[in-house]
């Protein structure tokens, strides 16, 4: 019996480990454990006002802070029948695009690229890949700039509030954002080409189901009230609990999800697989040139999917900014009631994020939050099991730990990181 124990995954967001038990040439067990300590956010918001919720829930994650804020805003505003004006909606879409650029750039350059180039960190890549690191920093910095001007800070900005914004971004900064985005398009193309140049190994390939929000009017995007599933099913976000069936497992503080009893994948790869044909412009050209059936089976293409999404975001910003500048600056919409229930969902960088709230007398009585990584964990386990099985049957046992970590990182898990101590235990005992 051999036990591979990746005590703590590094270069992912959060604390987690992987244990793989191998018996001869067979995989006995694969477990992705999340040690991220429990914070009980869903219960902390009970008894609080909607304004308090908006201060608390973005703190779940330093990377997807605005996705949490946006999903919460949607859920709370649905509960309180607040319909925000178009300019507010478009400005929120713009801030989410900023977060997707920031998060994807962090993942592809700092967490994933060192794997493909054989380094321990992006900092070590500077001497030989200085241009790439600079490009990554500039792209990530631009994403943060966009988040900062709309939310008031690079991380945990409080400007997006119930019914609108404390202050809308000025024409001047909107123009600045538009011009910066246009300048960065050629850099994004280079990123797509870099990630298209890597060989993605086939030992991870397996069939799975994909899920993403289905933006209206046949467009690509990150916000909708409807869930699209690769089985051709479409469900309303209100039904999310039925669709993703969460459960608790004893070895992880992150909950697990199944769709019809089977693991599924969310995130950039799911969005491209489900909605990629809707892409236009340069992102659309790259999609047509690079897309293949392998994307449906191989999670490593998530890196490439993220690179294409960065390009999509940069091409979308100028159009969005023009639309926003053509609209009157609205005032903040106030609620007329103090009770109700509502589910809000957005595509966070890593996949569909759901926030459910129930309110009475102006205070929260119930809350449920389903994060993308929690939804992906079962599929990450299944992919690891497939990969270890395939590698063992081919007699490949070198660098098994690194290969497994690369797979986990490909999904871009966000389980907020601890020390990295890979331990391999081999014993001759039958158990």
């Amino acid at each position, binding site marked *: 019996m051999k036990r591979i124990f990746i005590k703590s995954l*590094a*270069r*992912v*967001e959060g604390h987690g480990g992987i244990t793989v038990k191998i018996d001869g040439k067979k995989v006995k067990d694969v477990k992705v454990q999340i*040690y*991220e*300590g*429990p*914070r*009980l*956010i*869903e*219960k*902390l918001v009970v*008894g609080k*006002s909607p304004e*308090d919720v908006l*201060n*608390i829930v973005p*703190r*779940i*994650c*330093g*990377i997807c*802070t605005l996705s949490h804020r946006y999903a919460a805003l949607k859920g709370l505003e649905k509960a309180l029948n607040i319909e925000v004006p178009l300019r507010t909606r478009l400005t929120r879409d713009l801030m989410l695009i900023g977060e997707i650029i920031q998060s994807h750039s*962090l993942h592809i350059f*700092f967490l994933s690229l*060192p794997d493909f180039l054989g380094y*321990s*960190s*992006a*900092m070590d890549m*500077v001497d030989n890949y200085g241009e790439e690191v600079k490009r990554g*920093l500039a792209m*990530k*910095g631009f994403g*943060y700039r966009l988040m900062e001007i709309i939310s*008031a*800070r*690079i*991380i*945990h*900005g*409080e*400007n997006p*509030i119930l019914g609108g*914004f*404390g*202050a809308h971004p000025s024409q001047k900064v909107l123009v600045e954002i538009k011009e910066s985005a246009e300048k960065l398009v050629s850099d994004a193309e280079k990123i797509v080409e870099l990630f298209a140049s890597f060989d993605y190994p086939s030992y991870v390939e397996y069939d799975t189901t994909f899920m993403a929000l289905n933006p209206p009017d046949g467009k690509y995007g990150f916000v909708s009230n409807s869930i699209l599933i690769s089985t051709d099913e479409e469900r309303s976000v209100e039904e999310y609990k039925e669709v993703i069936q969460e459960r*608790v497992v*004893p*070895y992880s*503080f992150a909950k697990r999800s199944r769709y019809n009893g089977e693991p599924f994948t969310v995130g950039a790869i799911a969005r491209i697989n489900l909605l990629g044909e809707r892409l236009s412009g340069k992102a659309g050209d790259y999609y047509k040139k690079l897309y293949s059936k392998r994307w449906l089976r191989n999670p490593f293409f998530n890196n490439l999917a993220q690179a294409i999404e960065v390009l999509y975001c940069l091409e979308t910003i100028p159009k969005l900014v023009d639309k926003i500048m053509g609209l009157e600056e609205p005032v903040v919409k106030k609620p007329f009631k103090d009770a109700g229930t509502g589910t809000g969902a957005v595509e966070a960088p890593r996949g569909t994020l759901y926030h459910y709230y129930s309110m009475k007398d102006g205070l929260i009585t119930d809350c449920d939050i389903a994060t993308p990584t929690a939804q992906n964990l079962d599929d990450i386990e299944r992919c690891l099991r497939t990969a270890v099985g395939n590698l063992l049957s081919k007699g490949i046992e070198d660098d098994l730990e690194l290969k497994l*970590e690369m797979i986990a990182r490909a999904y871009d898990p966000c389980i*907020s*990181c*601890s*020390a*990295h*101590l890979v331990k391999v235990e081999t014993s001759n005992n039958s158990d």
Partner: protein
Amino acid sequence: MGKKKIGIYSFSGCSGEQLVILECGAELFNLCDLTEIKSFPMAQSNNEYTLLDIGLLEGSITTERQKRELKEIRSHAKILVAMGICACFGGIQSMKLGEGGWKKRFQKVYGDEDKLFKTMKPLESKPCNAFVKIDYYIPGCPIDKKQFLHSITHVLNGSSPYLYQFSVCTECKWKENDCLLLRGLPCLGPLTRGGCGAACLCYNIPCVGCWGPAEVLNVPSEYRLLIEKGYTTEEIQRKFRKFGGAPMVECLKKIMKQSNYSATKAPRLKGGI
């Protein structure tokens, strides 16, 4: 003399502090040149618990395992710095600290923890100084890039960092913003540690207190002011405790004990640290 060894370690939180450090750009590369980074989980592989000149901590302690790790880091580190509101005060996950309902809340989220999680042993969230001695604090939610670079430069050179002792209110005045408290909004600027540049106030958003209690502050005075403005004691307590962590819990207890408190007689909180 060899390079100073530093290590960044992360507990329960949003990893916001590591993200801010990663966003330091050119200065981050200078820091990499000047030091040997033994741990930086979000940025590099091969992280270790080893002898350190400076240990940097983010996140609060919410499992037995984290408590053991924190004690191990302390035993290896000459200087330990808590970064961010979770490590410094306990963070939002400590807002109900001491209310006795932690077990119930845990069960509502995860079910019966006695059967589950036997190996991981969850705890009610506490700041790092509840278990080990902390030498310096860099507040924030998340920390500010300039304050981090200022602090790490000082500590690397053997001197103490100077961080703002005053509240967000002062920074807000520097920015010449209209006072939101005067407009009747529940702004926590007078109680909250400065350093954020009054970021929210510049967007007409009242301070929510996310940097934690200032070094010297007058909680009873703000309490009375908000009562005068028409807020209920429940609303005020909720706001004060949201980011106030362990020190605010203590302070509110003292205020509640004095039924006829006055701003002058009531105890002054010295930041709790």
